[in-house]
């Protein structure tokens, strides 16, 4: 679904992504992991169409990425909720912007809020919510536009461990039920292994891909309680360390 060919991206004069090639299949998930400053977020924003490539190509369903692809959802670390809008108005924003009919917006937003178990919060403002609740709202907002591609930039890294695992389970469920292709950027190894069907390890410098690992255990909700999970975590950890020593 997503094809990246000879991609170079620059931030000002410095090269952040140096020659990346990557294929991500439809209805699969991909976790991109690497140390901070390795360019993984830049890569994600490139796929989202927010930042433009310097050279090379990013194709989604064989079309070059443009800004505002209608079916790409983006979820950010700091939630990106507008503080002056209530939960309901935040979640409906995507549909409002797309010019949906009022009744359709009402129906869709209520439905998504109920599915994510946050309907009771609909009249609150973001400042009145906990971090986990805010991220649920951000997920709800991304889901209202019925995306076929969901991009997440370190979505759970500022949350406590329990909220984080709950939301990881939620994302896994959403992926399975809606056939959404998922690309997740993270610096958390456990998260990458739990949510990544393919795990892409990026190097410390120059935004290059060091390794791509297939994760055969992906999709198991009970994975965290199994020893295979820790084996893969260990494998990823070692690959990341090797890079550091070099």
């Amino acid at each position, binding site marked *: 679904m997503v094809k990246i060919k000879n991609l170079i991206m620059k931030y000002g004069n410095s090269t952040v992504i140096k020659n990346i090639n990557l294929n991500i299949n439809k209805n699969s998930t991909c976790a991109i992991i690497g140390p901070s400053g390795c360019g993984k977020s830049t890569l994600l*924003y490139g796929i*989202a169409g*927010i930042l433009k490539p310097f050279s090379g190509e990013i194709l989604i369903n064989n079309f070059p990425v443009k*800004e*505002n692809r*209608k079916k*790409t*959802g*983006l979820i*950010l*670390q*700091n*939630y*990106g*909720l*507008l*503080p*002056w*809008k209530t939960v309901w108005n935040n979640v409906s*924003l*995507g549909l409002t*912007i*797309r010019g949906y009919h009022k009744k359709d917006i009402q129906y869709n937003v209520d439905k998504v809020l109920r599915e994510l178990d946050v309907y009771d919060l609909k009249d609150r*403002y973001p*400042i*009145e919510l906990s971090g986990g609740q805010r991220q649920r709202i*951000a997920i709800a*907002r991304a889901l209202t*536009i019925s995306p076929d591609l969901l*991009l997440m930039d370190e979505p759970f890294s500022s949350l406590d461990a329990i909220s984080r695992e709950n939301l990881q389970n939620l994302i896994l469920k959403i992926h399975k039920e809606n056939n959404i292709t998922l690309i997740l950027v993270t610096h958390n190894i456990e998260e990458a292994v739990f949510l990544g069907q393919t795990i892409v390890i990026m190097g410390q410098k120059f935004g290059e891909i060091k390794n791509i690992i297939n994760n055969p255990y992906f999709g198991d909700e009970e994975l965290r309680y199994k020893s295979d999970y820790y084996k893969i975590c260990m494998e990823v950890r070692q690959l990341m360390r090797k890079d550091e020593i070099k």
Partner: protein
Amino acid sequence: MIFKKITKYKTIYGSLIILIFWYALHFIFKSTIIPSPHITIYEFFILIKGKLLIHILVSLFRILIAVIISLIIGMSVGLFLGLNKKYDKYISPMIYLLYPIPKIAFLPILMIIFGLGNTSKIILITIIILFQILVTTRDSVKGLSKELFYSIKSLGANKIQIYRHLIIPAVFPKLLTSLRISIGTSIAVLFFAENFATRYGIGYFIMDSWARVDYIQMFAGILAISFLGLLIFKLIDLLEDKLCKWIKLEKLEQK
């Protein structure tokens, strides 16, 4: 308990304290230069039915026109500079040079260029408030996080929608704050400007009463300015309450 009541009726409480001081000064000096509050207030209510109201309305009109013009110019230039760093780099030094100049010193020049009437007075207030609004708008746009822009762009917003859902609501409460500050200044400046070449306006009224050694009327005029300020501040508070509920919540959160 007492404190709660005080914050609830804070305007009445403030007036009471001022009245007590006023009475104290009145009794200490025992002179006509400080008339007693109740006589002044009585005079105020008699005058407000007639000429004082006209003077106040003329002043209010001058302030409102100036505020509207400075909002339009200040906001558009502020938004433009906040969103376009390239131009900001070249234009900001000029703004910083012009901002601290006491614009009131230009009143004679303005009167020569724009005439003695309303125009020169309105322009004077405009160039004073304008800078405050411009700098506030520019800085609050600059302070918006990249994430908010990313997230609203990812929802497919076009330029107008970004203004409508992100930039304007973000700037609005800060604009109200800068209005609060600049309106105090503009009333004081207007008072000065209305001493020249006009027979209307609260500034004229006060200075005219002074010249006629009518201290009761003079104080009634001062009272009127105070009420005019209060009215405008309350209007701004009301706007904030109605349109920026989230600001209140944010303030609560910080406590």
